[in-house]
């Protein structure tokens, strides 16, 4: 049975974006309770820690613990909170929905988080393509100022907070938190050397916390219904809370689905409440469970596969942004890997030599195998290039992300790569069909 939605509860409600409907649904009551009910910032952080909430942006770091890294004495510097609404990981489209349909849910979480951090200025870094999302959000912010949920002395509590929408301009790497910080400062969005970590030295040289849109939405519900309630949702206390899954690819019903953390992959793909099975009754060939950066899984590996941080780590992949991309048996795996390599080759920020040189090289070699011009040694060459890019030798984990689809697809579908090189054509897929006729 499908559980009551939490994060998507208001999606589909008439005028779900407007503050009057949000207030009618009990919105901003939690903010009132926390700001005027004697809560301290420390108590809010403690509650979030207790809930087990882990960041929904990709890395799954415990949110309350991260907040705790902000130094007690900031030496007179302000603390900044940045909402990461860059959502650019291929296959991911949940934050867009959250912002376009229920912006106040996120905003309330953002103000609550800011209170916990003693932060008076926050920004929403939203990807440039979200013109509509940015407009919806700006309207929500204007409404929140009008009603006194933002600005000076919110609800007479003495706490003040300002939120500004900051639009990006097209660059995947600005989703990486230090790339985002550089971009917000008006520079090229190139990730920084760490340490220092943003919680100590972030934007404008001040302590900074970056949290994902969905994470901030979860904060609203942790404080509304309590850490214990939140911690009980999901597979276990380390993988807790409601979760949004982005399902795309060859299924009957792609979309954003909410379920308790740890939903079984098979349920998401085949369940009546979710994907409703494979399009045209085809078989599953491979699934990318966490966006372009996650290692592919085979049809065998999706048996008993809980979709949460630890469930996917156990399969040597990751939950990432919870972007589940399904490929059917007619998909040429070399073609899919080539497409993913194209993405990483376009999006490398160019600072580190292994990443700047390696990503286009991988794309070139894959393209030539796909085009039927592969050489006998090309598959090993792909592995060699990958091994020279990964294992944390670069400034950020982008390079490790770029090699994940290459190494996992070779590891799991080596025969298909070999067939490609030896026969100069695809084993399956639309091209294979054309070539079979013309051969």
């Amino acid at each position, binding site marked *: 049975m499908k559980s009551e939605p939490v994060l998507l509860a208001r999606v589909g409600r008439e005028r779900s974006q407007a503050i009057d409907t949000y207030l009618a649904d009990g919105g901003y009551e939690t903010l009132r309770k926390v700001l005027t009910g004697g809560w301290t910032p420390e108590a809010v952080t403690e509650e979030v820690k207790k809930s087990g909430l882990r960041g929904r942006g990709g890395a799954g770091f415990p949110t309350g613990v991260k907040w705790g890294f902000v130094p007690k004495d900031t030496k007179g510097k302000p603390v900044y909170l940045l909402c990461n609404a860059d959502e*650019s990981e*291929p296959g991911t489209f949940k*934050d867009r929905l959250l912002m376009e349909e229920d912006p106040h849910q996120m905003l309330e979480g953002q103000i609550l988080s800011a209170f916990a951090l003693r932060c008076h200025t926050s920004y929403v870094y939203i990807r440039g393509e979200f*013109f509509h999302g940015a407009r919806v959000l700006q309207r929500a912010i204007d409404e929140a100022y009008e009603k006194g949920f933002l600005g000076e002395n919110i609800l007479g509590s003495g706490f003040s907070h300002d939120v500004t929408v900051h639009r990006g301009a097209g660059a995947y790497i600005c989703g990486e938190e230090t790339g985002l910080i550089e971009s917000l400062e008006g520079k090229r969005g190139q990730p920084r050397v760490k340490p220092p970590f943003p919680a100590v030295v972030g934007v404008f040289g001040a302590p900074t916390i970056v949290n994902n849109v969905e994470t901030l939405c979860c904060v609203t519900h942790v404080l509304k219904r309590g850490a214990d309630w939140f911690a009980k949702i999901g597979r276990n206390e380390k993988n807790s809370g409601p979760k949004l899954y982005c399902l795309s*690819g060859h299924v009957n019903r792609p979309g954003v689905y909410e379920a308790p953390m740890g939903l079984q992959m098979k349920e998401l793909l085949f369940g009546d409440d979710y994907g409703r099975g494979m399009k045209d009754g085809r078989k599953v060939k491979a699934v990318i469970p966490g966006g372009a950066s996650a290692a592919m899984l085979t049809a065998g590996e999706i048996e008993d596969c809980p979709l949460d941080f630890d469930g996917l780590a156990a399969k040597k992949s990751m939950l990432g942004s919870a972007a589940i991309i399904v490929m059917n048996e007619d998909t040429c795996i070399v073609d899919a890997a080539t497409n993913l390599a194209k993405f990483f080759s376009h999006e490398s920020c160019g600072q580190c030599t292994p990443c700047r040189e390696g990503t286009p090289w991988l794309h070139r070699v894959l393209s030539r195998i796909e085009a039927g011009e592969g050489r006998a040694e090309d598959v090993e060459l792909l592995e060699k290039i990958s091994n020279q890019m990964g294992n944390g030798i670069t400034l950020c984990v982008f390079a490790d992300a770029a090699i994940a689809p290459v190494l996992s697809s070779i590891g799991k579908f080596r025969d298909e790569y070999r067939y490609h090189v030896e026969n100069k054509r695809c084993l399956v897929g639309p091209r294979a069909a054309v070539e079979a006729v013309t051969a």
Partner: protein
Amino acid sequence: MTSRRYAVLPAGRPAEFPPDARARIERILSRYPTKQAALLPVLWVAQETWGWISREAAEEVARILELSPAHVSGVLTFYTMYNLEPVGRHLLQFCTSISCHLAGAGGLLEHCRRRLGIDLGQTTADGRFTMVEVECIAGCDRAPSMMIDDAYHEPMDPSKLDALLESLP
């Protein structure tokens, strides 16, 4: 590297922001502790004002924000959404990332290419359309997804696209 068509900005007319744009820039500046942080939003104002960002416009932004023109140009060429040359009245942005690719984005792109007789990065002779390829735009459940100017059109297919191309001014 984020791919850009031109690293050197072509020249345009001398740029001076109209009064309403100046007022917007003042409001933007009030939201940040440094002038430099206003760079991306102010470049957006420039693009909305002129449709693209000429060398003169970039220099004007640099002057207002007290930045070097080299810094502004470095930033401009890093991001893909700033137009560094004039574009057609409508910017057709095709997503070709994985979920759209699996849903036939390649065929859609080819269809449009043939219909308009232009390639990626080019503008039709009548100045109506410019075609570009973009990476995942978060519309993967309605693949193939595309944007025309500021709006999403998804899922897209060849006949829907034909109708749109017909109806757009």
